[in-house]
């Protein structure tokens, strides 16, 4: 990493103001202006780096500027590089990267909407987060109060890209869908059966989460982190706590790290099992789904035994976890896992036994590896399409640095392989938990509570069951935050669905969608 940073200084002496290791393993490269394109290009093509996310911050009253942050990592290097590009308040504009890097399409438009900073040269600069019926406001600016009362909603005004040609028509779906799922709008352009293209409209569930993080006292904000995406409550809250712990240099006791690791893996197991059932269900294999639902219940009961909550709420805390475990609780882990392992094997056998299921899943919804890496796809969806990323291995946290486990990666990128990644991962997770339980140390389960010093910045990444979760915080006065950026893996992965459905029939959309199973709330916040 040091050679890379030296290289950046030498190659871009005009642009790089300073480099500092703000937190161990996190390097902040301060630029002298809003233009990050040359350095970003160098990192991406010259150094095979990956741009994980782009976000902004309003520092106008404190420093007279906005900042854009570009977060990079490189294969084989656990360090993070954060380019920090000041944008003058008087000229709120920055050069867009979206034309050459489609993965930042939405992220840059979010910056436009939240902060009113123009992504100059963006190929499709329309609103994305604020719907077209919103007045001209920029909610993450500091001069926009959280409680602003906006004029009432007057109806949709969004214009979808029209489809032309003989026999080509649109099928609009949403925002309220047929099943028990979250709201979003899908506009399919179809020619007969096959889907020509899909346009998405998200942010229906936007509830001011990042702004709200700036108001709550930090200990209470942990509960808000649990509510970013309910199916990943523990992973998001852990990511949040880790960011605060790094910013405030809080040492998390070993026992707490072990407990967190076990619970992170249980969250993965519970969700992968229900996804396996739901994927089978969407191709008409209801019995498999019923079995999956039953096995999942076993995991949720274990979660309740370990945390008091079936969905792992109210457990993680700044500095560790809220409650320690008795011997009987630890024994419950071993007992339940034994049954779950066995039952899950049966479930997989049931799914595998059905040739018609295999037919429906194979070669359906293909996301090719070149596309996946170009679009910046992460998590399960990425690994099924050759993108070999896993935060647990690449930027280890909690106990993962001491564990050996394998990361399943396939190239085929169809629904079936997204299912296979999950199946493999359930087995890996069970082994991870067993190894963690076997070495569970004694000692405190939480560091003593302490006030969080102001003016500290840190980021944290967690491999949630869906993929890479990132939180970035700047602490403020009075045990509060100045900013909390939340990146759910769903934000990276929506373009993957758009890509994967092309040429498939509309009837296969549900199972393709389910094989990604993205979080609308995590996207919309």
């Amino acid at each position: 990493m040091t050679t890379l940073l030296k290289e950046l200084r030498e190659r871009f002496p005009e642009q790089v103001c300073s480099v500092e290791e703000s937190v161990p393993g996190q390097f902040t490269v301060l630029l002298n202006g809003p233009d990050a394109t040359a350095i970003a290009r160098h990192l991406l093509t010259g150094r095979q780096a990956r741009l994980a996310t782009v976000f902004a911050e309003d520092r106008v009253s404190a420093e007279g500027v906005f900042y854009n942050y570009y977060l990079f990592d490189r294969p084989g290097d656990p360090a993070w590089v954060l380019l920090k590009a000041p944008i003058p308040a008087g000229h709120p504009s920055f050069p867009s990267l979206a034309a050459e890097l489609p993965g930042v399409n939405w992220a840059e438009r979010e910056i436009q909407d939240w902060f009113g900073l123009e992504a100059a040269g963006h190929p499709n600069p329309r609103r994305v987060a604020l719907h077209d019926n919103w007045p001209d406001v920029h909610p993450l600016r500091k001069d926009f109060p959280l409680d602003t009362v906006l004029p009432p909603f007057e109806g949709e005004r969004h214009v979808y890209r029209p489809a032309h040609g003989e026999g080509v028509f649109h099928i609009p779906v949403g925002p309220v869908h047929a099943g028990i799922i979250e709201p979003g709008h899908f506009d399919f352009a179809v020619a007969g059966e096959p889907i020509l293209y899909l346009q998405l409209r998200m942010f229906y569930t936007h509830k001011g989460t990042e702004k709200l993080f700036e108001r709550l006292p930090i200990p209470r904000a942990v509960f808000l982190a649990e509510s970013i995406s309910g199916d990943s409550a523990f992973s998001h809250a852990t990511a949040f706590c880790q960011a605060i712990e790094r910013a405030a240099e809080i040492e998390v006791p070993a026992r707490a790290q072990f407990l967190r690791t076990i619970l992170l893996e249980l969250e993965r197991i519970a969700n992968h099992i229900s996804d396996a059932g739901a994927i089978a269900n969407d191709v008409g294999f209801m019995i498999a789904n019923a079995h999956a639902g039953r096995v999942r219940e076993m995991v949720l009961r274990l979660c309740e035994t370990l945390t008091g909550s079936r969905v792992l709420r109210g457990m993680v805390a700044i500095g560790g976890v809220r409650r320690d475990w008795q011997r009987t609780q630890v024994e419950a882990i071993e007992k339940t896992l034994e049954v779950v392992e066995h039952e899950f094997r049966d479930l997989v056998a049931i799914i595998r036994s059905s040739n018609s299921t295999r037919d429906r899943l194979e070669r359906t919804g293909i996301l090719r590896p070149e596309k996946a890496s170009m679009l910046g796809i992460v998590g399960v969806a990425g690994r099924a399409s050759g993108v070999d990323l896993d935060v647990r291995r690449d930027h280890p946290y909690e106990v993962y640095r001491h564990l050996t486990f394998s990361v399943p990666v396939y190239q085929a990128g169809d629904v079936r392989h997204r299912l296979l990644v999950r199946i493999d991962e359930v087995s890996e997770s069970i082994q991870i938990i067993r190894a963690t339980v076997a070495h569970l140390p004694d000692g405190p389960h939480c560091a003593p509570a302490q006030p969080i010093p102001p003016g500290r910045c840190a980021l944290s990444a967690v491999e949630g069951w869906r993929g890479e979760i990132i939180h970035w915080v700047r602490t403020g006065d009075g045990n509060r935050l100045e900013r909390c950026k939340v990146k759910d893996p769903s934000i990276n992965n929506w373009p993957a669905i758009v890509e994967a459905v092309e040429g498939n029939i509309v009837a296969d959309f549900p199972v393709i969608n389910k094989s990604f199973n993205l979080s609308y709330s995590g996207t919309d916040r």
Partner: protein
Amino acid sequence: MFKILQKTFKVGVATADYPGIAPQLAEQFRGCPEFDFDAWSDARPAAEACPTGAIAFRDRDGVRLVTVDYGRCIFCGECEAASAASAVQASAVQASATQINPVRMSQNFELAAADRRDLVLTAEYTLHPDGRHAELKSATSGPSAEEPGKRIEAAIHNLLGRSLSIRQVDAGSCNGCEQEIVALNNPVHDIERFGIHFVASPRHADMLLVTGPVTRNMELALRKTWAATPDPKVVVAVGACGISGGIFGTNYASLGGVDAVIPVDVYVPGCPPRPEALLYGILLALGQVRQRPGSLSRR
């Protein structure tokens, strides 16, 4: 196919029998907090710790009005912990023996209520100069479990032989509530044994099961779904967010609870409410509507 049959026979009946028999709860399960208002010497630490403002107080003329709103509660246990910590401090000063925490997490989850006000407890105290409670002047109790219990029996009775169709609407939730609503349909909770089905269209629905908070961007869709549902219809608001906006409250993007937008018949507390709590609320709503057929025209 043989494998499947084999599996189905081996497993047998997986379904839990709630509400016929009490649900199997882990010993560690956290339901709602319960309050010994007589023994509570200071509400401030609990209110300070409460992440959602479910516990709040107002001091005026030497009198403190404490409110506890189960419609905001996320069952986190922070009030119990904060209260215990302050009781320990106080007892060290007074050198008193064992002090029992006046705020304790219970295993009660059957909190659904038809009247939003039933979810709010209040207690009034005169104060010591240091801000601690001197004397309890008055207190209201929470939702009584007895009466709804009977109503639920009536609801199940009413349901026999017919079916109920539910349309679920996510009006902005974090998806945590949806997780438990999905679980209602698994073989363990098996809501279909009551003849209750989830349907795809509001036009076929008797009941809307709505999670929140209602976001600005979902308000119109929720209104339209409600309008498309034929009368008589029942609306059940799910979770702290569906009742009050929960941890999100109201802000530039959130309108708060479901009843800010459409009329609500039953409120189901929790974050998320466990499947049995949802079932309890749904059955309560049925009893409600059978007992008081005029409940919708009221509004």
